[in-house]
């Protein structure tokens, strides 16, 4: 199982060909082998959601997936949210509503919220809180995260 094999990952539309052991988690490969350290590791057992990335558009825990399972699938991380210098509406809303303090959980929340709203643009407040409950934040008490996501939802719909 420890024999390395070559795989190609597509992260934010860029191809990365890397040699990895089959047991290496997707988040470790994204961070250490592809140098995209915006995706964070908070628990390595799928509870905190700091490592949330979009896999074919679906928010997933990158600590619970092996990198080899992500071959030939599209991975989106926080580094891919901006368009050039232009922040994604979700990023803008997070700073405007003070939805981050230490910022460690932020990439996971951004990807979770963007993934959910791209799929379901009309989430009501209760559904939104339900989805945001998948990830943990230890600084903000969530209130400003919820506000930011609501505001971004309106922006995203307007731009869609």
């Amino acid at each position: 199982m420890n024999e390395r094999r070559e795989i190609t990952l597509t992260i934010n539309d860029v191809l990365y060909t890397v040699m990895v052991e089959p047991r290496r988690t997707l988040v470790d490969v994204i961070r250490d082998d592809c140098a995209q350290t915006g995706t964070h590791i908070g628990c390595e057992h799928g509870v905190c959601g700091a490592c949330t990335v979009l896999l074919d558009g679906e928010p997933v825990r990158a600590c619970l997936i092996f990198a080899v399972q992500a071959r030939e699938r599209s991975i989106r991380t926080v580094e891919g949210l901006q368009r050039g210098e232009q922040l994604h509406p979700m990023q803008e809303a997070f700073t405007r509503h003070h939805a981050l303090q230490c910022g460690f959980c932020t990439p996971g929340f951004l990807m979770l919220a963007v993934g959910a709203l791209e799929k379901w643009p009309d989430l009501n407040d209760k559904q939104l809180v339900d989805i945001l409950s998948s990830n943990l934040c230890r600084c903000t008490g969530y209130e400003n995260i919820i506000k930011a996501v609501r505001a971004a939802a309106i922006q995203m719909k307007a731009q869609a």
Partner: protein
Amino acid sequence: MTAGPTRWIGVSVERLEDPPLLIGRGQFAGDLSFPHQLHMRIVRSPSAHGRLKAIELAAANAVPGVVAIWTANDVTHIPPIDFREGPNEKLAPFRQPVLAKDCVRYVGEPVAAVFATDPYVAEDAADLVSLQIDELGVVVDASLAPGEFGGVLTTEATICRQGYGDVAAAFRQAAAVVELDLSVGRHSGVPLETRGAIGRYDAARDVLELHGAAKVPHRNRETLARMFGRSTAGLHLYESHVGGGFGIRGEIYPEDILVLVAAMRFRRPVKWLEDRREHMIAANHSRQQRHRIRAAVDGDGHLIAIDDEFFHDQGAYIRTHGTRVVDTACGMLPGPYRLPHFRVAGHFRLTNKTPAATYRSPGRYETNFVRERLMDAIARKLDLSRVEVRRRNLISSQEMPFERPLVALGDEVVLDSGDYEGLLDKAIAQFEWYKLEVDVMRRRESGEHVGLGLAMFVEKSGLGPTDGARINVHTDGVVEVITGGASVGQGFETVIAQVCAEILGVDYRRVRVVHGRTDRIEYGIGAHATRATVMTANAAAIAAEKVRAKALNMAAQLLQQDESALTIANGDVVRTDSTGASISLGDLAHHLRPASSTRGDRDPGLSEEGWFTTAHMTYPYGVQLALVKIDPGTGAIRIEKMMIAFDVGRAINPTLVRGQLVGGFAQGLGGALFEEFAYDEAGQPLSVTLADYLIPTASEVPHVDILLTEDARSKFNPLGIKGAGEGGVAAVGAVIASAVDDALGGKGLILRLPITPQVVKAAIDELKV
């Protein structure tokens, strides 16, 4: 356009910290790597107490990629981890060794360190290290009789005592006595980022570097230099982004020492990242105390005396804080109330659990719960309302500054300013307490289990004695502020920039704030005890005033104006009436460069240093109020309405203050209802994942109304500010207990935190009987 200065203090500007964090370009400890680095993995004790007979390393050493495996014998020259406040002979025997030598005392204690070329390999090899341990008996309850420690000592390391007056006589005079036995569970900060440390030795400069430092880099440099017998000149600490501090992050732990020693010995950088399970059993725990407290009151409910004996569950060793949590608990227990006689004895006891230290609002979260439960009990005993019993005992604004013959954090308690009753009135009115009381009565009649709670508290902030800042204006006009402060995500850079911007007349986005680096400024006390904004902002203000004076002086010469006719606006020195020529701060810095012919006899550079010294801490205060509903079928508690009223003296950035309060509330709610490091009777930890240790999610944390007031500026610093870091968390256990108890009929049934559904359900079932 007038040249009036732009206001930055008191404005909720967006944070300077946010941009890199939003785009995935933050730099947390795990994001840092150096060429040729090794990876460290710690082998930890699986046993809560035992004699270490043998460590078998052969299988682990045979794993390809393993460079070395260390046990205690490899670090015999390193002393146990020292106290930040310096040597303490009495407590010294209880300090933690870097690696366990003959005895292990808690599950998670470092026993060996594996160094390998790859983190997966290091972990594989660590799993192959086998330990032979002869089990010994364990102590898991600090309120039971002490056990032995190291053969000659007992697990009662010390007893912290404070008090004044004649408590015995007071109890003899009392019209009524109320007595409670109250416990707070074991919980901790549990930041989302686990700990991380990278040691690096730069032989070319003979400098040993610790990356991933946090909270108190300068103080830790002093401790580490003392432990290593190394000059501070050859030892530097570097803070990166910190994924939550909360008191526990940034203390010196065994792993920090090991990466430094290894970096020196291997001449290669050594990186260590904690995994979540390790964090739950290795990073500081906090809070766990049992109080046996009694109060003597007169017939009108006035406190005459409090007598408290409590048992503090320190865990297996005494770490960097020494007895600080217990000392603070003793000094802060009386809260906002007048208290003629007081006696407290805190039994500082070791147990076979993960060592404990500070967690946001240490010693106050616990004692606010204890004291406010006591106030509710007094109200019940004397048939007074819970609001009234508090009102009768509050220290009045006319009595400020109010000196108490007590000590907290080594500082005499002098409550500098406050209108406690004024804030209580405002909070009660805005919360609509009396209307809700009527609602609650009506809803109970229809069978609902609803209740109201309130708690009052005094926080402390701005621990001195001295902090500094150096400001340097670059020739492009960028203002660099070099501080000895630290950032744990609270918005430090933004608020320091706002203060400097206001005084220097520049846009706050032109200010860069340096923090957490021992190589940029000689001294600093970092970010702890809600001190960073109070201390560093005042130091920065002093430095900024000097820079402003120097800029105006230089500009007056160049513009041929009187200094008094000049001011600074938008980064330019201009005439106050906005007429005539102007000159930018950048150009002034250019005129002040060493080789400048216009500099005259002024010292080179548009730069100055400022130091702020304070004799005492400053004390913000607050009221927390809650309305809760219990589900009688499950015992689940839902918070229907929550308010935190808090007087911060003067808010530099109100949005950030609110953020601190709401975020702190969420942590306090965890401790009140969900979070607990549970242990079985053998000392095995039962809460080792985030699926066992339940941090509140967006579904559990309610909306919190914040009533932020600025009625009582601090009298102890020129900016008049008080700290906001801990006011949100401080009384959450107290207020939720008060409300849940009320929902259960106000019988004083809630005596312990966290209040689990099992406890509530059992209480409800008992009420039905």
